[in-house]
């Protein structure tokens, strides 16, 4: 074997290092919210920096659980897409991460990395979107930073945010708190954001335009928590889609989650676009949806609270939490057969045939 080539031998090390062995470089696939990204995070970041509690949640807790703290970066391409832009995405994404901890946003920071040549009118439009989204979310962007890099060194604009939120009293929501017997709810149809961005990026046009579902969920979550204080877990299905988010919870809580495929809401236009492109809606990103896991007896109250809010009108029960095989997500198909729903590996790519 030539010197320097990694051997194609079975590697029985800790799971976090398996995919790393075959790659000496960062690949695009490391950023898609699937298995490879999880392995990168475990193998490179967490192993060196440790992790805050609760491990694996989208927002860390500070001050004895009273505050939630999160950070995010936005590199969406294209920066303007049907129904939104990178600015709206930045605010909503941050607010939603805080919401998964049951926290209302106290303050958001936004750092901008601007490429030389970006139109100022575009920048203004993006920041207007941020202001608009912040108002919808009852949040404020109170501090930030600006950097400019030469043409070609950044793709128009990248935005990095952080957010601090106040956790509602008596609330303790974490991806680690799902329990057997709990019910899995979803606040609305999934995949709109991913397909909206993909369609604009690739110049694909569908008869019914697909528009992003990007929205701040803070208020909807507040109302939910007022109705049902003891929500166990929440997660917003972004990159990697529903499959990634459910797998994270199943692993964190060490439970099995069963989802009924027929009960997962997907808009017909999104389903059709996915079929055309050979994509699976269960892996397509949303930016304005929340998975909510509650005790079975709280399911009705939770659904009512979600449906009472404009962003939760189409909330549905999609599955339940059980005991059998910890860390696994099962999908019950329309035929009644079961299959395992893994996190996706690599980028979602179209069929050839």
């Amino acid at each position, binding site marked *: 074997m030539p010197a320097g080539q990694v051997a*194609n031998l079975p590697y029985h090390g800790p799971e976090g290092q398996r995919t790393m062995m075959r790659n000496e470089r960062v*690949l695009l696939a490391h950023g898609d919210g699937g298995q490879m990204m999880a392995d990168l995070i475990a193998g490179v970041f967490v192993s060196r920096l440790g992790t805050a509690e609760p491990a694996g949640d989208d927002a860390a807790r500070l001050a004895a659980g009273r505050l939630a703290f999160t950070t995010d970066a936005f590199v969406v391409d294209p920066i303007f897409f049907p129904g939104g832009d990178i600015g709206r995405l930045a605010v909503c994404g941050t607010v939603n991460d805080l919401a998964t901890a049951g926290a209302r946003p106290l303050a958001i920071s936004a750092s901008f990395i601007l490429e030389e040549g970006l139109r100022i009118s575009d920048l203004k439009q993006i920041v207007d979107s941020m202001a608009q989204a912040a108002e919808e979310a009852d949040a404020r962007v109170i501090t930030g930073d600006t950097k400019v890099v030469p043409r070609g060194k950044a793709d128009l604009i990248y935005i990095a945010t952080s957010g601090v939120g106040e956790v509602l009293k008596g609330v303790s929501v974490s991806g680690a708190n799902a329990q057997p017997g709990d019910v899995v709810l979803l606040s609305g149809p999934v995949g709109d954001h991913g397909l909206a961005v993909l369609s604009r990026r690739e110049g694909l046009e569908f008869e019914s335009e697909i528009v992003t579902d990007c929205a701040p969920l803070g208020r909807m979550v507040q109302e939910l928590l007022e109705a049902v204080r003891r929500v166990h877990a929440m997660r917003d299905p972004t990159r990697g889609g529903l499959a990634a988010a459910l797998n994270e919870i199943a692993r964190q809580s060490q439970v099995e989650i069963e989802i009924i495929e027929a009960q997962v809401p997907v808009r017909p236009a999104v389903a059709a676009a996915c079929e055309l492109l050979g994509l699976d809606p269960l892996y397509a990103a949303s930016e304005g949806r929340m998975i909510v896991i509650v005790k079975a007896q709280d399911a009705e109250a939770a659904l009512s609270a979600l449906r009472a809010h404009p962003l939760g009108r189409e909330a549905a029960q999609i599955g339940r939490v059980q005991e059998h095989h910890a860390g696994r997500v099962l999908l019950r198909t329309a*035929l009644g057969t*079961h*299959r395992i729903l893994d996190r996706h590996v*690599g980028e979602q790519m*179209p069929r*050839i045939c």
Partner: protein
Amino acid sequence: MESLKELRNPELVRRMAEAVRRTKAPPATLMEVCGTHTVAIARHGLREVLPDGVRLISGPGCPVCVTPQEQIDRFVALGRLDRVTLATFGDMMRVPGSERSLEQARAEGVDVRVSYSPMEAVAAAARLPEREVVFFGIGFETTAPAVALAVLEARRRGMGNFSVLCAHKLIPPAMLALLTSEVRVDGFICPGHVSVIIGSDAYRLVAERGKPCVVAGFEPADILRAIQLLLRQIAEGRSEVESAYARAVRPTGNARAQELLARVFEIVEARWRGLGEIPQSGLALREEFAALDAARRFEVAVPTAPEPAGCRCGDVLRGAMDPPQCPLFGAACTPATPLGACMVSSEGACQAHYRYRRGQAVL
């Protein structure tokens, strides 16, 4: 879309599954030769509804999987040439070559772009006159016509910077080749999209050699119907070509597409991963299109390299081995750490088995 909705009615599908389960049939092995069928069958758990003694195996229906390693190496090598931009269907990105996949080559600086269609690659070549755009022509008879159109368009526009590395293959010759292998197949589920192009009559040669052929669509109901028809033929000792996909497939296929293929390509011997050389089973650009043929236009050195140790993709593609029987399956070879094409490709038999593996029934 209305009729598709009816076809997907869970009640209908359940009844058909029951009917298949209750079909009286002698022990038989059925083979599908279409990647989309591979996925649909795994995804809907259709193996679970087969009557006792009936097996369903996968054949060489995944165009990505049957592309031999050296073709990938050749394409990567082209990408390392000065000013070359590679364009490919997304499905090829992660397939391991002997040293690199396209995904890894891209991370090292090779200019690789994913195209949804060959026309997109032509458009890219028009936008980038200083680059040499090479499109990877992978796929069966379904994809080849689009590539033919792209070649004609590039020539019409007088483009000097577009070419195709042609690796297209034909399904019926592979089916015939399988008949002479040691793998026992009693009937074929014939591909849907390929049959739209070539027509169901194309399988007569196979049926004449004693193997029933039924063309199937991609809905679970379509595939179940095809299985039912096959089992019936086997029970009655017939071997004919039937179609359970009449809504899309004509006996003579799509004449215009066939004309396009004949115009641009000639039929040549081709190498298939797992099946070796099969005469008259591949397409190559005709002499008059030499300037658009990357294989003739560029000189690259491609090392002969062995397949990864222990990789049994070849056996899986021939139907000689079920994915779970490969010693590497699920251990060293998983979708996250693939060793062979069958695990990488979204239509590969190994990936389908792995991704859609059964959970225990929880009811």
